[in-house]
């Protein structure tokens, strides 16, 4: 019988104890005064507050029910385009995030050795002064570039970037190279935008999904759209070495050999171009480079692709025909986490080009509304100082076409270890968990060892916080304001549902406080969170009070290039670039080209990882509500293969790669290719401050090998090969 705290208990517990810490008595959570003022919460502490989820980056709008000053239920906001009234399991569990007994509620300063988990509570004054002094000392001694800043993808990102750029460091670590660099750079090269928006309308007949396990890696509204498309009768062809839940709903599941999505798509292009199935007029009018493309793909026949992918040539040909028949109501989905193989960039290029050839622009794909709306205001701030230092992550001197804003995170980490071209000395981390997210955990820990000072902003003692010198407690998303989020013709507000517990503070406050101590106050010209948002709202002519009531305000939509009669794209040629001169100029192939992936040895398996509906990356494993409804993480192995190796379900096995070894239990299943094994990422935490998550499962980053695609900077997460033996 699992000994977990009952929900009744935790609501009474508050912030009792986290590991070796002895937290003081928590203040009773008060209903956000602001919500009271807005009338959304009444005098008894009951009411509803509109806000936004942060359990993943989809950020569904939610309506929080408050009773007696406590959040008791979250429901999707019907008026938010990402939720449409629904919340996924993580969204529903969000209040457990806020009421997690393991939350960090005061600033912590390390007293033991890194990794011992011995911290002492400190006041914000002391902690912020310490952080500022350490950062300043590093800047003075080694230059601003010796301070690395990394944050994943927050609504408070603009203020984070203020800290980074104003401080003068070029070293911006986002996690994107662990996720979708390949997709973004490919889209940028082809369409001149990071990611087109997908249109799931009643006409959509055919969807080609390459990976993108939408029914487990849930993006609420898009997951809904996909199921509705299937419901209407659209055909979904799904490529994945695993029989995921998406596979179970897809019309056709192709268990493709890992690393060979590229071969499949090149063969599709071969058929579509070779048999002239593409949209001639669209291609002539809106694309450049068709001839180069045609020349390149002429050798990628289905017969060539069949042995590489494990998919019969007739199937590939048939799918090409079906796709073309359904066009333009056929969508080749880019996927999302495209950091699979070094050749993933070319796969992404092939996919974007496939869409372009079908002429499905403004039918199934269109320009997305950006997340930075030009319509919103912002506090005044001076210009950033010029930064001359090289970036540690090799952009652009090693990775010429990787955008600055996304960088190459694993390279950054590698060069902290190597000290090349210079040694970093400090790391400021916010809403990010590099110890778990970066491949090769051992190397990340080594990087930590090279740094004089590490400070982390987080809400629980995640692994990265566990190994830091200072931990600054951010308020959970139900307890804070964040900058407004534009979406289509609305801007959405995240506002506190309850006052932050303990001493937790919003990132807006933390960054400003830190900024001021670093002499960068001019970049944080707002009194408090509300003032910041008011300044954002000024051009819209609405008051904060109005926005608080509904959770959003109407805003003029960003200018859409689709509105003009002429279609243009933000590429050098102004057209869709089937051949990218930008790539060719720096020595890469201008068209998608075959890049043979590495093969595992006889006794090795591809190590696959992927998402599940009940967790988000590495941050939610401590959430007891999600834990309750999650399977125990296991190593999946094909049942036949397991039998041949003399392994059975529940056996303890040793999984070894060239960088690390883990022990975990086996699950023999039919749902995976014989040459692959799978682990759910995000387990095997080192932090004992995560009482629910500690001791559960094994860690994937401990065995992941670092491989970087030279074009997009993307990490190749599925390129790690492991041996599996009985432990």
């Amino acid at each position, binding site marked *: 019988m699992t000994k*977990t705290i009952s929900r009744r208990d935790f609501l009474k517990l508050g912030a009792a104890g986290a590991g070796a810490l002895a937290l003081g008595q928590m203040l009773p959570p008060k209903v956000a005064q602001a919500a009271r003022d807005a009338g959304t919460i009444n005098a008894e502490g009951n009411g509803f507050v509109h806000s936004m989820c942060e359990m993943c980056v989809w950020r569904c709008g939610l309506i929080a029910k408050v009773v007696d000053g406590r959040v008791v239920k979250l429901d*999707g906001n019907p008026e938010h385009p990402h939720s449409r009234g629904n919340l996924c399991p993580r969204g529903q569990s969000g209040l457990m995030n806020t009421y997690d007994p393991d939350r960090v509620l005061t600033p912590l300063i390390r007293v033991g050795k890194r990794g011992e988990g011995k911290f002492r509570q400190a006041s914000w004054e002391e902690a912020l002064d310490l952080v500022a002094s350490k950062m300043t000392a590093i800047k003075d001694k080694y230059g601003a570039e010796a301070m690395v800043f990394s944050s994943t993808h927050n609504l408070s990102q603009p203020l984070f970037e203020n800290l980074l750029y104003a401080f003068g460091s070029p070293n911006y670590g986002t996690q994107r190279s662990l996720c979708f660099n390949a997709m973004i750079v490919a889209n940028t090269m082809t369409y001149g935008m990071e990611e087109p928006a997908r249109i799931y309308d009643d006409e959509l007949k055919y969807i080609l999904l390459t990976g993108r396990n939408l029914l487990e890696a849930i993006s609420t509204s898009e997951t809904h759209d996909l199921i509705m498309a299937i419901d209407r009768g659209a055909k979904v062809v799904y490529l994945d070495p695993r*029989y995921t839940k998406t596979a179970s709903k897809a019309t056709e599941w192709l268990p493709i050999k890992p690393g060979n999505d590229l071969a499949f798509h090149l063969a599709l292009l071969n058929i579509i171009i070779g048999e002239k199935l593409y949209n001639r007029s669209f291609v002539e009018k809106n694309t450049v480079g068709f001839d180069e493309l045609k020349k390149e793909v002429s050798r990628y026949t289905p017969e060539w692709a069949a042995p590489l992918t494990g998919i019969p040539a007739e199937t590939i040909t048939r799918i090409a025909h079906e796709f073309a028949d359904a066009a333009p109501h056929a969508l080749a989905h880019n996927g999302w986490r495209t950091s699979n193989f070094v050749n993933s960039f070319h796969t992404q290029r092939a996919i974007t080009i496939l869409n372009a050839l079908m002429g499905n622009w403004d039918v199934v794909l269109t320009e997305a509304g950006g997340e930075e709306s030009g319509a919103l205001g912002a506090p005044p701030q001076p210009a950033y100082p010029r930064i001359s230092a090289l970036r540690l992550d090799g952009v652009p001197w090693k990775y010429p076409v990787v955008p600055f804003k996304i960088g190459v995170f694993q390279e950054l980490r590698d060069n902290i270890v190597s000290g090349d071209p210079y040694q970093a000395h400090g790391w400021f981390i916010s809403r990010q968990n590099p110890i778990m997210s970066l491949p090769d955990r051992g190397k990340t820990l080594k990087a930590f060892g090279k740094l004089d000072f590490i400070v982390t902003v987080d809400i629980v003692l995640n692994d990265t916080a566990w190994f830091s010198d200072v931990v600054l407690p951010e308020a959970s998303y139900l307890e804070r304001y964040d900058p407004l989020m534009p979406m289509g013709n609305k801007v959405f507000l995240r506002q506190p549902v309850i006052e932050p517990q303990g001493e937790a503070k919003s990132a807006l406050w933390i960054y400003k406080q830190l900024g001021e101590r670093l002499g960068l106050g001019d970049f944080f010209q707002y009194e408090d969170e509300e003032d910041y948002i008011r300044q954002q709202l000024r051009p819209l002519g609405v008051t904060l009070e109005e926005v608080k009531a509904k959770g959003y305000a109407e805003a003029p939509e960003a200018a859409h290039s689709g509105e003009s009669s002429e279609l243009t794209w933000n590429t050098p040629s102004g057209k869709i670039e089937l051949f990218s001169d930008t790539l060719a100029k720096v020595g890469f192939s201008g068209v998608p080209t075959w890049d043979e992936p590495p093969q595992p040895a006889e006794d090795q398996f591809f190590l696959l990882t992927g998402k599940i509906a009940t967790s988000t990356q590495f941050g939610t494993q401590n959430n007891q*509500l999600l834990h309750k409804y999650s399977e125990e993480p296991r190593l999946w192995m094909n049942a036949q293969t397991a039998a041949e190796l003399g392994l059975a379900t529940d056996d303890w096995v040793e999984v070894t790669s060239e960088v690390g070894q883990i022990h975990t239990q086996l699950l023999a*299943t039919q749902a995976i290719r014989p040459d692959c094994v799978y682990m759910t990422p995000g387990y095997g935490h080192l932090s004992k401050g995560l009482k629910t998550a500690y001791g559960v499962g094994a860690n994937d980053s401990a065995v992941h090998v670092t491989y970087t695609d030279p074009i997009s900077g993307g990490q190749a997460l599925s390129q790690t090969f492991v041996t599996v033996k009985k432990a």
Partner: protein
Amino acid sequence: MTEIKHHAYLFDATRCIDCRACMVACSVENNIDMDKTRIWVAGVGIKGTYPDLQRGTMVYHCMHCNHPDCMSACPVGAYTKAEDGPVTYNPDLCIGCRYCMNACPFSVPHFDYDKGIIDGAFIDKCTFCPQRIYNGQEPACVQTCPTDALEYGDRDELIAKAHERIAAHPDRYIDHVYGEFENGGTSYLILSHIPFSELGLPNLPETPVNEVSEKVMEMTIPFALGWGAVLSGVAAGVGLYNKKQEEKAAIAEKAEASK
């Protein structure tokens, strides 16, 4: 929304992605302990041999049967069926005998084996979220379902909708709405692409499973009275017979003695 005369759920197994949002939502809405649940997913899971695979799971909670077997079985009447659908459990009457757990053909009621005599060990099951449905909201599980696998509405309307859906996609669905007639009809209707037994649903006839049991119970008092009458008759008859024998013996004795 038209007025709901009989609250019901419609579950479409082809849309369910086993994401468990419904389960988390129910746990939160109804403040359920971490080691208990009112709603669960069950089914055959993954079936077949690689690569010819199929997956079947379904979300379970109380079926809110039209002829609830729990209500029939409970000795103290702790279950009631509202006219508009929901079957409600009353912990104030419950004696914890757990007969309802056996009686329910869907094995719905859960019992708290971890409570002693002071806290009291009670049954728990889906309540149909009365705090929501009587306030113009959908049940928590339905509201949050990202794929509309769970829907809510009036029973007749949902049944009609279900049949329409089958008619629109005849090769996708099994031509049957489970719960329309099973066990005398339930308020949780199910559409499926695979045999219902693979979703874990029992094969039930249209007559409620409590029918035989209730018929026998109806006969109890008449039987008792009848049997009592028979026994009284026998006892009286035997008694009379024995008395007569004794009188005969007494007369014979007297006759003997007087000789």
